[in-house]
């Protein structure tokens, strides 16, 4: 009856259990060959296929390194990454949303590759915004994969039917949205989720007034909150947008429930595939004081571990200018390299040309080690005014208090 014996029995039991469970796979590597794992979150088939093509091309080009990619759903990505970190069970490369890059670098997940990439002259070719999102305190922690930004999409038929013209200023946008709202069709939609995806969209309004993401509680910041709140009050923007991802917004647009939307170029391949007959076009996001858009896109982050060199081999391969040209359009992205971006789009590709133009006004989020918390405060403030829980002034005050406590 002694406790000691009980303990022994329970230990034996657990051991048996593991023995039964046993025969688990070992992570062993064959001699000389390095396995490199990539995590990514693109859910559309086209993106997945394109990525796999780059990988298989690389695997065939040499015999030392074998790369494979694992899909982790976006909703799970951060969780999986942080659990993997604490258990020291991470992939070798992470293709990550650029505003999150700095916070992961600050946590020490990514390797400092400044020295290793010093001689890679291609680095000079990168645009400043995307490259800066890979940096923290002057050190390089990754390489941009590709960039994108937001623009205004509009349904040309609806625009014509309402006898409206493409809006250029905030006032025009508000008026046109109202005009286009009829029955079940809403004038304008943009993802307004209380997370990074929402912040990505909200910041275009914030920046257009001339203020920064860190200064919300000022006349400009309040104005941007009030403007979005007015759009909702007018009925032009559906409140439901607070539950919509950018993919949802796109689906609402191609189903004819939205006359205009704010969205990115990566949706275009899917839109053309699913709604080939829809008559749509793009324009710069209407401005208040200045044009503004949000710099989106992904970076390659190299995980601090044993495979840094092998991972860099792959990244250099994937970032060769000629190679980028083979896949960047399939992603609906804009190249982060000047030499590629210059000739990326055909002369008659007016839509991508517009995105390239909008790109000049695109600002990066952060980079800040605690960007997720700042982003949370911003998206929450916009959600508060959209649902009518707070007035723009109160929401701004609250968000500012949180932001100030983070950046000190």
């Amino acid at each position, binding site marked *: 009856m002694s406790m000691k014996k009980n303990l022994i029995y329970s230990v034996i039991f657990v051991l048996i259990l593991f023995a039964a469970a046993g025969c688990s796979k070992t992570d062993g590597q064959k001699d000389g060959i390095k396995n490199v794992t990539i995590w990514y979150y693109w859910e559309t088939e086209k993106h997945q296929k394109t990525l796999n093509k780059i990988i298989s091309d690389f695997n065939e080009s040499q015999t030392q390194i074998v790369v494979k990619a694992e899909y982790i759903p976006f*909703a799970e990505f951060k969780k*999986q990454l942080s659990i993997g970190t604490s258990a020291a069970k991470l992939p070798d490369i992470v293709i990550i949303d650029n505003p999150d890059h700095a916070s992961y670098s600050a946590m020490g997940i990514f390797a400092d590759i400044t020295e290793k990439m010093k001689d890679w002259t291609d680095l000079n070719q990168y645009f400043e915004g995307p490259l800066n999102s890979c940096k923290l305190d002057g050190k390089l922690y990754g390489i941009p994969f590709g960039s994108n930004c937001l623009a205004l999409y509009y349904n040309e038929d609806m625009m014509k039917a309402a006898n409206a013209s493409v809006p250029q200023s905030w006032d025009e946008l508000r008026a046109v949205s109202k005009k286009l709202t009829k029955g079940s069709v809403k004038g304008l939609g943009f993802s307004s989720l209380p997370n990074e995806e929402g912040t990505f969209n909200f910041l275009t309004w914030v920046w257009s007034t001339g203020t920064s993401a860190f200064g919300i509680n000022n006349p400009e910041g309040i104005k941007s909150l009030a403007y979005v709140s007015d759009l909702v009050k007018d009925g032009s923007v559906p409140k439901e947008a607070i539950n919509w*991802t950018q993919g949802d917004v*796109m689906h609402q647009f191609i189903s004819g429930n939205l006359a205009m939307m704010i969205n990115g170029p990566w949706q275009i391949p899917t839109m053309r595939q699913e709604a080939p007959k829809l008559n749509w076009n793009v324009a710069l996001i209407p401005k208040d004081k200045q044009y503004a858009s949000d710099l989106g896109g992904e970076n390659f982050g190299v995980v601090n571990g044993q495979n840094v060199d092998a991972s860099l081999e792959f990244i250099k391969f994937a970032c060769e200018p000629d190679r980028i040209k083979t896949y960047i359009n399939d992603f609906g992205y804009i190249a982060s390299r000047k030499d590629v971006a210059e000739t990326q789009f055909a002369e008659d590709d007016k839509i991508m040309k517009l995105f390239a133009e909008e790109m000049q006004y695109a600002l990066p989020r952060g980079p800040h080690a605690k960007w997720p918390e700042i982003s949370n405060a911003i998206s929450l403030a916009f959600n508060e005014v959209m649902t009518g829980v707070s007035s723009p002034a109160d929401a701004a005050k609250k968000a500012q208090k949180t932001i100030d406590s983070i950046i000190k």
Partner: protein
Amino acid sequence: MNINLKISKNNMKNISLSLLSVVIAVIVLFPLYWIIVTSLKTEQEIFKINPSIFPHTFNLKSYFVQMKNGDFNMFRSFGNSLVISITAMLISVTLSVPASYSLARFTFKGKRICILTFLITQMLPVSVILTPMFIMFKNIHLLNNQVSAIIADATIGIPFSILILINYFATIPKELEDAALIDGCTRFSSFIRIFVPIAFPGVVVCAIFSFLYAWGDLVYGMTFIQDQKLRPITAGIFNFMGQYGTTWSYLAAFAVVTIIPVVIIFVFMQKYIISGLINGAVKG
């Protein structure tokens, strides 16, 4: 004459109760009907203002989309879910039946602590269990292996089954056990021959719940298993939500594909389950 009247009165009662039960079923099960109908509609029809209770045309497109979804294979993941859930159920029943028997029938030192422990083990939200469990599974090399999901899923079934079964074992009259002991049964054989059969409906219910907890689990399966080929069917939900957003016809079709097989299994098993419930009544 008198007898006839009585029978018809019973019949009336029988019919009206049956009708009432059908009405209840229709109300409760309406969401299921609705999701099936939605999966057969086109996206345009879903957005119509006055929704049709029957779809105008049977649109099977939403189902075909399920077939080709990148790495994720519906049928394989369904099989994975079955393997995970059945194994988790077996572990959970095997461990919880004897434990609850002992906790119900005997007094011993530390018994209350035991019961409290089983209660406690289900009190942490999944989100905080994930990281420590992940680390543990990594250390014993069970990551990316269905065993990890099986073990984790059984931790939901075991305490639940124990706390339910205690009551079944406790309500069995003492005389039955005494009689068995007089008949020369040992404790172990009286447990197997007397108690388990009497508590059978409870055991069946616990088995069902253990299966269902494992079947419905999303977080464990997704977190511990990265290989798409090994993942349970529920993991497909995020793939679909990410890919099709609010394309409701697709999501509805996914929901139907997830539900229908379980319901079919259940309908076929129902005879046994229900008879287990009814026949298990203590006649003593």
